[in-house]
């Protein structure tokens, strides 16, 4: 069942890479010393940090936790010292919840969840599935919230799934892009930079196009009657279509044209600078070439 608390969750890629690294590290260290066949993949635990403003929960960062799985004991002192350290560097972030790896929720998870309620009254639980499944198209990350439900007459806390969106700061996006697609790092020539930039835009637009195609295909099949009529979906599609044009005011047009002109002005200035530099070099070369003729005193200037 899905969450009904109405909170929107935003996740930053840094958290994902953090958790992935933590897991890979522990796995590598265990398998480096253990004999084959490998022991089952260990579960790793950690805390997630971020900011909660109103109904939006934005998860920026994370750090590891020390958890003894055999005794089910969470190292509190460790948690607190780590929290303090991170507060010094990132004073705005609070502990919002915790994370672990695995394919599904386990019963012991609720215990950890409850333990964290004294830091944050309603912590979030982020689960990452580290098994690599190439057929899967979706991120293997789920966010759970705890909700009080009455089951068989007994009120108990259970986990409910919540939806989330990925949010990036511009710098984050560029570095993720850089590492993910190994963009040319020495693109000093303008041509490669341009190609890289346009390729990025092109891939993004292709994604948009394919998503719209899927929608279109679905709508066509509704029209043909193959798929049952769904009012909510149609309402969403209709509102989406009505959102275009995105901005259609004269003020926007004015600002847009002004920005366009500013850029053209910059290009003009740059071209003039280049021109004068070339001219300067030309004159220098000319002077050098005709130098000898000028040495004799009394000789008039060259032409």
């Amino acid at each position: 069942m899905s969450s009904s608390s109405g909170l929107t969750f935003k996740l930053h890629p840094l958290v994902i890479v953090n958790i992935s690294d933590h897991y890979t590290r522990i796995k590598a260290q265990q398998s480096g010393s253990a004999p084959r066949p490998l022991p089952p993949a260990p579960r790793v635990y950690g805390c997630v940090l971020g900011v909660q403003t109103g109904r939006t929960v934005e998860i920026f960062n994370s750090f590891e936790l020390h958890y003894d799985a055999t005794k089910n004991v969470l190292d509190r002192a460790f948690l607190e010292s780590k929290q303090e350290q991170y507060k010094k560097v990132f004073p705005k972030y609070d502990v919002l919840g915790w994370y672990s790896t695995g394919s599904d929720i386990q019963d012991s998870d609720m215990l950890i969840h409850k333990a964290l309620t004294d830091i944050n009254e309603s912590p979030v639980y982020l689960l990452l599935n580290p098994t690599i499944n190439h057929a899967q198209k979706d991120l293997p990350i789920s966010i759970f919230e705890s909700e009080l439900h009455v089951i068989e007459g007994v009120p108990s806390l259970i986990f409910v799934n919540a939806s989330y969106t990925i949010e990036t700061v511009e710098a984050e996006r560029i570095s993720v892009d850089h590492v993910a697609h190994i963009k040319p790092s020495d693109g000093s020539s303008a041509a490669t930079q341009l190609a890289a930039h346009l390729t990025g835009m092109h891939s993004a637009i292709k994604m948009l196009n394919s998503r719209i195609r899927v929608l279109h295909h679905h709508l066509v099949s509704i029209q043909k009657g193959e798929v049952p009529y769904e009012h909510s979906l149609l309402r969403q599609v209709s509102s989406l279509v009505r959102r275009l044009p995105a901005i259609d005011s004269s003020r926007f047009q004015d600002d847009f044209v002004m920005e366009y002109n500013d850029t053209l002005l910059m290009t003009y200035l740059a071209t003039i600078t280049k021109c004068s530099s070339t001219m300067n070099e030309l004159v220098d070369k000319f002077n050098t070439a005709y130098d000898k003729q000028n040495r004799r005193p009394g000789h008039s200037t060259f032409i």
Partner: protein
Amino acid sequence: MEASTSSAAVARQTWEIENNIPMDTPSGDSDAIFEYDDAAQSAILQQKPWTRDPHYFKNVKISALALLKMVVHARSGGTIEIMGLMQGKTDGETIIIMDAFALPVEGTETRVNAQADAYEYMVQYSQTNKQVGRLENVVGWYHSHPGYGCWLSGIDVSTQMLNQTYQEPFLAVVIDPTRTVSAGKVEIGAFRTYPQGHKPPDEPPSEYQTIPLNKIEDFGVHYKQYYSLDITYFKSTLDSHLLDLLWNKYWVNTLSSSPLLGNRDYVAGQVADLAEKLEQAESQLAHSGRMGGFFMPVQRKKEEESQLAKISRDSSKITVEQLHGLMSQVIKDTLFNSVTPATTALGLSLDMSGPEPMVET
């Protein structure tokens, strides 16, 4: 959906082959880099091969996590310099950076005081980290130069020389978050200083970058005292898998990013700086042009390009970045704004083959 991901993969492979990037060994082995062999590392520390050759370390490998952390931290500082430490290990002539963490001090001129505070934090952090499986030692420090390029200033050079005396092996990394966002690619540099008095072999100057006028003196005095290392990146198999999937979600952010808006201040600053440089160049050239016309050509033979040529290169660079930003804006405008109510009826029934604009005006 299938087509787009496979063609992206094909494009990447083509690019990798063209640029001679060594293909990652299949899954099991590429994660081996994450194993930490304590005995081997201590043995290397005993041997100290770097004392024999000041130019010993030539390459740096940075993990995806470390890069992401450093860039995000640098950007969060805004226009203030930030610093942090990096953890990792060495492997022959390569320094491998596995992780990075931020230090709760801001880069100021009085770096000596900051060191004491930072040291305490570092010790505590390393201890807690060891408990959760981060066994590597600190192998370097990083800091940011927001807006003025990746190089070592005078203070940086002396700090690094001190580090290289007492904390070897140690690496200095500089990140410029402003230029990263402006140029759309990560601006990062890794450096090691030469010991005092060492005369480096005459290397060709590394990739040219513009330095603002007020810093150019600091750059010029010290640039011969250190050398830069090549940087490559690596990531684990799980990282690659996750990042691939991540693309499915954040293509939206790529489209919605608008570098022009975010970088107005920086661009304005660059243009002003260029104007000042032009004035300087003008006075210099006017002065030397008239009377030194005969002497100049001889002297300038071995010199690098003249002031004016450098300025024109800088201006082209900043203009190109600006143009890229504008291109994105125009593309977005065509995509989303060129629909008028009259054409929406036609929109849905258009043939959507290939990457053409979705709606025609």
